[in-house]
């Protein structure tokens, strides 16, 4: 292991006994006796100074690609710009320094914020009931499936335990259904990328709990027979669950509620501009139609006394499934999303969808002669191209992705959706300019040329990044998951010291 070259040490390698990063005041109370038999002997954490910490994490940050550093066309992730004002608002002392269990009369501003966010999201999706509690998209899906089950049980239909999921769905859809004990049945897509209606109808029986559908789907295509799909499920007594991951495609233009959806979840960290944080925190509010409002997870915010201003408070929906996490959800994320919605208004939100779809179609058309696009029709906010050519047999989507890094771009989503071979799923979002898109197009075309003329440059990419291709097999076989897994930490420190 000692042969690895080290670009940035780990904290434990920076550690020098006796260093301190921060000090706290001396106790101003008498010392109490400690229960000796319960104390730990050693706390093996690093010892570093404040300067060490700042430089270490600043250097690390510079190894990241981020929306703030460049184009991030990662399909299904909606990596749009995260407005800076959002960050300031979430850190206002009146939001950052309030305790979740404070008396309601002392947090009327926070409750008003949640109430209005519930209301605006309800308006945006056209469904009357909203819970802000789910912590992320997958958590919202799980919540939605629990609502689905609670509704059927309430109707006395305990046998409804089957959830239909299209083969183009995000992995979280079947996983969320399975986690709640539902039986998952996969439905194929047809040749236009829509859900296969015949296969769907075959599964519409008395065990059907519902359908989970992403619209537009993960191919970026609007479900052309959405009305028929919804009707088929409803006629069989099932509910239609909408995965709102792709809401950026028709924000302010169409609404889930108008299309007959019963439950949807939204990703505030995609559509509503809150940052992804390197993997969260997100926020996955769930919206439901009138007949499901009573089943929402609690508590939710409502007006408990009319007035000017009204008094807000927490209430429990009558047949609530219960809570799905502690407290009320990711409040800090809600502050950011509300800030965004207030700045955009209806006009602004519609413009988001329009420009997101314009950008995606522009890229699609400009790349369609160079990359095969298996479902090549008007797309919404994203589209899926194939990262392979018959005359460049060794090149895979992964090679194209790695080569894109050399041009300063984050690669598209790879190998998803599963129904396209060597998939490159491209979502530019509305916040990218034509100039950025043109530069991306040029890079993609150059890569396509290189694939034929100089495939080696793709196979060995990236070249211009601080790190080269990573050996994932070694990671999985050796399983070094903490620095305690090193057999000889000390020998490593000497390596660092002698650099």
């Amino acid at each position, binding site marked *: 292991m000692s042969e690895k070259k080290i670009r940035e040490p780990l904290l434990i390698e920076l550690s020098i006994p006796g260093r301190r990063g921060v000090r706290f005041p001396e106790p101003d109370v008498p010392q109490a006796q400690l229960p000796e038999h319960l104390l730990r002997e050693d706390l093996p954490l690093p010892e570093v100074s404040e300067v060490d910490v700042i430089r270490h994490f600043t250097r690390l940050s510079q190894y990241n690609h981020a929306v703030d550093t460049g184009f991030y066309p990662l399909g299904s992730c909606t990596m749009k710009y995260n*407005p800076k004002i959002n960050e300031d608002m979430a850190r206002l002392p009146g939001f950052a320094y309030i305790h979740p269990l404070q008396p309601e009369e002392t947090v009327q501003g926070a409750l008003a914020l949640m109430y209005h966010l519930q209301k605006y999201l309800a308006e945006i999706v056209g469904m009357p009931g909203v819970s802000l509690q789910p912590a992320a998209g997958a958590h919202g899906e799980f919540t939605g499936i629990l609502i689905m089950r609670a509704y059927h049980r309430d109707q006395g239909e305990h046998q409804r335990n089957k959830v239909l999921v299209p083969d183009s769905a995000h992995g979280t859809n079947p996983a969320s259904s399975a986690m709640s004990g539902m039986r998952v049945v996969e439905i194929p897509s047809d040749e236009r990328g829509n859900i296969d209606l015949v296969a769907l109808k075959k599964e519409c029986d008395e065990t059907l709990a519902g359908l989970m559908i992403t619209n537009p789907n993960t191919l970026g295509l609007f479900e052309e027979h959405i009305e028929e799909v919804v009707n088929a499920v409803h006629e069989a007594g099932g509910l239609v669950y909408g995965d709102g991951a792709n809401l950026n495609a028709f924000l302010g233009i169409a609404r889930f509620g108008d299309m007959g959806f019963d439950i949807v979840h939204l990703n505030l960290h995609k559509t509503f501009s809150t940052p992804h944080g390197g993997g969260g925190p997100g926020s996955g509010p769930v919206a439901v139609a009138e007949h499901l409002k009573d089943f929402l997870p609690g508590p939710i915010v409502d007006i408990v006394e009319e007035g000017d201003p009204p008094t807000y408070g927490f209430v429990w929906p009558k047949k609530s499934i219960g809570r799905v*996490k502690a407290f009320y959800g990711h409040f800090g994320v809600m502050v950011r999303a509300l800030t965004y919605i207030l700045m955009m208004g209806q006009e602004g939100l519609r413009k988001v969808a329009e420009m997101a779809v314009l950008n995606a179609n522009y890229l699609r*058309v400009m790349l369609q002669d160079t990359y095969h696009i298996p479902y090549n029709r008007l797309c919404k906010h994203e589209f899926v191209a194939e990262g392979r050519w018959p005359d460049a047999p060794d090149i895979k989507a992964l090679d194209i992705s790695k080569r894109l890094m050399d041009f300063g771009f984050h690669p598209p989503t790879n190998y998803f959706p599963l129904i396209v071979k060597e998939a490159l799923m491209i979502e530019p979002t509305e916040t990218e300019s034509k100039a950025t898109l043109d530069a991306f197009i040029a890079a993609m075309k150059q890569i396509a040329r290189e694939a034929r003329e100089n495939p080696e440059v793709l196979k060995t990419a990236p070249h211009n990044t601080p790190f080269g291709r990573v050996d994932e097999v*070694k990671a999985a076989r050796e*399983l070094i*998951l903490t620095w305690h897994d090193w057999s000889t930490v000390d020998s490593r420190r000497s390596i660092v010291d002698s650099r």
Partner: protein
Amino acid sequence: MFVPHTPEEIQEMLRAIGVEKIEDLFADIPEKFRHPKQIDLPPPMTEMEVAEELQHLAEANDNVRDHLLCFLGAGAYYHYIPSVIDHILRRGEFYTAYTPYQPEISQGTLHAIFEFQSMVAALTGMEVANASLYDGATAVAEAVNMAYHVFRGKRPKSVLSPFIHPQYLATVRTYYEHSDREVVVPDLPVEASPEALIEFIDDRTSLVMVAYPDFFGRLYDLQAVADAAHEKGALFGVVANPLALALFKAPGEYGADMVVAEGQPLGIPLSFGGPYLGIFTTRKKLVHKMAGRLIGESVDSRGQRVYVMTLSAREQHIRRARATSNICTNNALMALAATVYMALLGKEGLREVALLNYHKAHYAAQRLSQIQGFELAFPDVPFFNEFVLKTPSSVKDINDFLLDHDILGGYDLSQDFPQLDRHMLLAVTEMISRDDIEFLAEVLEEWVA
């Protein structure tokens, strides 16, 4: 504002696509669903206006920094957050990145999470930590799920202490009601120690889980219950307060198979309940059944040490319906906050804060129990920074009076434990001074009078 297109560019792009106008791009949405009635949203605001609006909402709250003296804990704690942490979190390279799927251009996030895993493992005394879950409540729910999968469903029962945070228990019930996972929360007298759970453990039990400290702030030696769980072949789990672990025996020392925690005390603001940090740790031999992202060390094509997401085949994007958990986006930025917090405080600092909490809480407990009508509910059991005080009348009345003096009183336990009518759970952190404790005592004395 955040859309850069000029009218000329829009025209040019439309021409390239081969459509006339923007509306044509939405022709695939059935006409009847397009352009609904006016959506009822307020007119757009400028940044200047929205800042004022939000400031107004924020000011409508009484916050614990500027207005209220906070003795409230119960799962969310007011601790000092050194300045460094937010400076790191506000680096756009960290907070505007996605999940590190492409390791070559995500080493910042990956390296930091590896450090998070390492320090969390050290703190809990465990071998492996994942890259985070949503919060303490969902971490307990994932522990129940993992134990179920470890035994492939053959041991459907989980025995959870009734003195785990009531909202965590409620979350677990929501998750698994009507599923084949059987969640048993024995109805025990509040005085009961963890050994009282032993009689509920049988060969159908996959997991026995206790809180450390428990919801009442109490700390017990966990060896007997851990051994009893193992004797029956079950896993032993602990939900801990990570700050307490700086001082007290790590659950790993008791042989815990899973240690989960709410990571909020490690440098994360109260923020009205979230986002916080779900900590999840386990033994290496169980790692394949663990939920969530996991970072491992490897090497790149240039011979450099690198970090990368590993064992991904456990996760939903590969296993789909067969995955143990559905978790995808987690709370990575909060894990970064905790990483910077643990790094900055380090070995000595973390212990120092834990000791401050311990001493102040004990001083407060002693001072408050001298007031007529007030006494400690569990005077003989060690505690960390939270304790239960028996009060002479309803906690609500007392808290109303305290609030009139700008004191945020303790948690009213009668909400969850009917037998603990007139019992208040108080938290005392390093943010509370001796004078603050004196002030609380005086106001309570005034109330008694």
